[in-house]
């Protein structure tokens, strides 16, 4: 746990809940490996979200309860899930036809780094002895209509993940539209990182200290506080 998380900011489940609040009724949403998997636990009232997992299922629900796990019903992060009415299974070529063909409304990915121009790096540190592992991330950034990133604002060591320019090998160029971190909701656009919301107890100054690129605020629209 990082220092920032223990002092202020959202827990992982709270970030997931906050992301889900922005999903529109009827949206088809792919959930990436890691923290994004938690989003499936939160569907806002009066809305239906169709969650897609690239390993071959559309229409799944929350993570399976203890004792209800089925090793042949898992998400992209290999966690056991549950099904909702109207679910469908399909093979990998069909699943990635959905992704590459532009049929996914929103994809929520974890990230190692996001740059202010929307570049994302989430598959390899590029270190000489790193085991690179890309999975479906490059297909998702190439094909989904919108890419949102869900991440801790900094690494476990406290280094910024939101940067001027990614130092790790890229997954995709200029693709990220929004970032949901434990500290803020940030839009990625012109001129870069635009702060929309701040978690309770987090100041803009503190956020800037933990971000390796200039933060912007529309004067007419100061950041709101995240209320869950």
């Amino acid at each position, binding site marked *: 746990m990082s220092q920032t998380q223990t002092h202020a900011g959202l827990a992982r489940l709270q970030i997931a809940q906050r992301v889900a609040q922005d999903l529109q009724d009827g949206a088809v949403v792919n959930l990436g490996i890691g923290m994004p998997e938690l989003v499936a636990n939160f569907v806002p009232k009066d809305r239906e979200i*169709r969650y897609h997992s690239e390993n071959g299922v*559309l229409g799944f629900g929350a993570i399976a309860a203890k004792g209800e796990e089925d090793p042949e019903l898992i998400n992209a992060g290999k966690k056991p899930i549950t099904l909702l009415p*109207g679910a*469908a*299974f*399909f093979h990998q070529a069909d699943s990635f036809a959905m992704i590459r063909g532009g*049929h996914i409304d929103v994809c929520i990915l974890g990230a190692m780094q996001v740059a202010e121009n929307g570049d994302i790096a989430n598959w390899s540190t590029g270190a000489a002895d790193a085991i690179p592992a890309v999975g479906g991330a490059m297909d998702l950034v*190439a094909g989904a209509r919108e890419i949102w990133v869900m991440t801790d604002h900094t690494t476990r060591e406290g280094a910024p993940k939101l940067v001027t320019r990614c130092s790790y090998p890229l997954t995709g160029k200029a693709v990220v539209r929004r970032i949901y971190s434990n500290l803020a909701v940030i839009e990625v656009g012109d001129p870069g990182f635009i702060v929309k919301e701040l978690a309770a107890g987090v100041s803009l100054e503190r956020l800037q200290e933990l971000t390796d690129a200039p933060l912007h605020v529309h004067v007419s629209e100061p950041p709101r506080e995240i209320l869950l």
Partner: protein
Amino acid sequence: MIDKFYSSLQAAVADIKDGSSILISGFGEAGSPVELIHALIDQGARDLTIVNNNAGNGRVGLAALIAAGRVRKIICSYPRSSGSTVFQELFRAGKIELELVPQGTLAERIRAGGAGIPAFYTPTGAGTPLAEGKEVRSFAGREYLLEYGITTDFALVKAQKADRFGNLTYNKVARNFGPIMCMAAKTTIVQVRRLMPAGSLDAEAVVTPGIFVDRLVEIPDPVVESALISQGASYP
């Protein structure tokens, strides 16, 4: 709540504009969405580019759309039909454009379009007159043609069962182009025989997942095109 069902054919096809490109399912009459095509004739859109395996039978369905002068160009594999001269007459009169595509290349181009693949290589047609004007490339000593993915504004498809999410099953060989056409259009409109309650379709047996479907219309007892033709029917 997600509910892709429309109450009428008219509403489902209302926004098809002049100049639209439209995928229409079916191999001959099997899988042809005749009611949707007739609604399109009533709706009035002109100057259409149609993708279908054939070019219509008799004077109903696709043949009636062509006969009404609404189709500028047809992309198909087999525009001959024992029972229809509609396409032939317009084609010989230079009033309709034909892009003839081998059936497997047509299917693969539609799937590619739906899958985000802009182009692929195929051995089909290499060394024949249908290779004219196409880029040729050798892989492992064999010649292949470069073919492009097809995407369109609309798809009109016939299926068997659907739930409100747009999950579909088909009936026998009426499946043919339906599943891949659903993938390749900006807006996919499907007529189905039966609206099923959510959760009643087996997730293992859904053929077209709802992600590929935008609008549904229930037509419990669709016309049988060959029966209409043998009665000498024409539309409108």
